[in-house]
């Protein structure tokens, strides 16, 4: 502290701020990048626009986080590249939409918040259920035979993904399906003269809840300790007497469930679903997990928010660059930190 003050006296406020800034950049690269991006955007637009875009970006990021967190865990724990993860996103979207469209049609169009929740919650739960069940079968049939071989994993999971998406078309048809967003979550709330979309607020809240829950499980519970230990050294976890494969199966199912949850949320956000929506989202998902540092939940969360924000900011400032911006962000971060924002250290 005294050094900082000393420098500040000699060289003015800026001279003290630079090393402090540098320390902040190196110690919390995720916060540094997030705040930096938000500030840069704020300079380039008026406050109201900025706030609306930030909320939308955060909402998109929160949904991306749901979709990406499962994949990053699967990779981190078992070194498995599951490129069929996108199919689980689609699956969740269709499962959620099915509940919304057919079973709960009356509640979904009703305007009472509680009746709406009574349709949204079962829709999300059903998405989670379907995705986890298929995830369980998928792990047994497709993933288990190809442990330890990335090339085979890529080939086999891409194949599995095609099959899953074709199965979706068999069950639900190949046309796009419009998904009704429940009345109570459509429209906006007006805060200080700024209209904030309700559904986006809901997404952010849900994303934060899932992030908090996952962080709690990973940091505080015994299962979390096991997962962290497994990421580091699988063999030693077995030596302690734990069956790593069961742990991995659990994580894989949870990851599929989260993909399903994210997919269902995305379905209500876009209000239109196709069997291939998961494939389109996979590009962002892969960017998010690489950007965040493969295997890191925290990195995944920040990566997702960053991707969401840059999409919206750049989409507003220069729409033609929006698609480039996401990949550009990844390239820039990797040049700065080749292991991603928050790397998981392996021994």
């Amino acid at each position: 502290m005294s050094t900082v003050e000393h420098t500040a006296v000699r060289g003015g406020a800026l001279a003290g701020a630079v090393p402090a800034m540098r320390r902040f950049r190196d110690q919390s690269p995720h916060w540094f990048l997030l705040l930096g991006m938000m500030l840069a955007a704020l300079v380039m637009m008026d406050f109201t626009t900025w706030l609306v875009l930030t909320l939308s970006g955060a909402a998109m990021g929160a949904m991306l986080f749901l979709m990406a967190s499962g994949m990053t865990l699967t990779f981190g724990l078992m070194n498995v590249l599951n490129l069929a993860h996108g199919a689980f996103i689609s699956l969740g979207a269709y499962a959620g939409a099915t509940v919304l469209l057919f079973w709960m049609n009356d509640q979904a169009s009703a305007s009472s918040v509680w009746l709406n929740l009574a349709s949204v919650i079962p829709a999300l739960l059903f998405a989670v259920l379907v995705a986890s069940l298929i995830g369980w079968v998928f792990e047994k049939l497709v993933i288990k035979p190809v442990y330890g071989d990335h090339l085979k994993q890529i080939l086999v999971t891409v194949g599995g993904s095609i099959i899953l998406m074709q199965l979706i078309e068999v069950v639900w048809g190949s046309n796009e399906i419009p998904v009704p967003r429940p009345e109570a979550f459509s429209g906006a709330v007006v805060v200080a003269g700024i209209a904030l979309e309700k559904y986006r607020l809901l997404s952010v809240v849900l994303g934060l809840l899932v992030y908090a829950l996952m962080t709690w499980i990973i940091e505080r519970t015994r299962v979390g300790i096991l997962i962290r230990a497994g990421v580091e050294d699988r063999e030693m976890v077995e030596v302690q007497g734990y069956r790593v494969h069961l742990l991995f199966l659990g994580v894989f199912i949870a990851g599929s469930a989260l993909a399903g949850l994210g997919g269902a949320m995305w379905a209500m956000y876009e209000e239109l679903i196709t069997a291939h929506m998961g494939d389109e989202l996979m590009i962002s998902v892969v960017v998010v997990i690489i950007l965040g540092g493969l295997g890191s939940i925290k990195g995944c969360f920040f990566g997702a928010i960053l991707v969401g924000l840059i999409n919206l900011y750049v989409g507003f400032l220069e729409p033609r660059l929006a698609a480039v911006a996401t990949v550009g962000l990844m390239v820039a971060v990797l040049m700065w930190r080749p292991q991603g924002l928050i790397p998981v250290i392996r021994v």
Partner: protein
Amino acid sequence: MTMDANLKPALRLTGVHANIDQYHILEGVDLVVPKGELTVLLGRNGAGKSTTLRTIMGLTTVKAGQIRFGEQDITGWATPRIARCGIAFVPEHMGVFGQLTVRENLVLAAVSGVMDEGRLAWLLDLFPPLKKFWDRPAGNLSGGQKQMLAIGRAVIEPRELLLIDEPTKGLAPAIINDLADALEQLKAEKVTILLVEQNFAFSRRLGQSVAVMNDGRVVHTGSMADLANDEALQHRLLGLGLGEHQ
């Protein structure tokens, strides 16, 4: 060549063969580990000592032969199952989880889910640095402290057999001494220990029985006292004038 007839073997390997990739590492290992004793497994680099421990633990597949633990035939069992029947393994690289705190490392090692307070107190008394660095990531510990954690992890719950691979490797003499004291204590508790070691002074101080390996086979078994007193035998088995280095 005979073991003390009064002692039932804790572990018995009969004609065990094992490969690592295409290399035939164990070529018919016959080994008896007497119950309640500390047995040292000696031999040159590449003799197959570490592979023997890994094979007992189920980490290397048994191609032929049999491994009996007490009354059970554990040949071909999966590692977690072997661990749960009371065998703990401290590998050469110690296998401490560096991202986890000392506490978390021990929490995981207590497979039953709860750490016995009395036993934990005893353990922290045995290895005081573990108490000092209780909530720090194990990756920040020194080599000797990591070794203490690795052994501590193995004995956080009562085990029937400890397999310890070269605990003194790379450690300063003062720390080796501390480790020897700790192992003496475990010996006094009548824990069966199979110790792979290159440091003969350390082995001689701790070992009761000894087995010497060469080229994937056990070529000598007997009491440590006999080997320690017979320099010619040491020369022949280990190829070193070990007596001169004491």
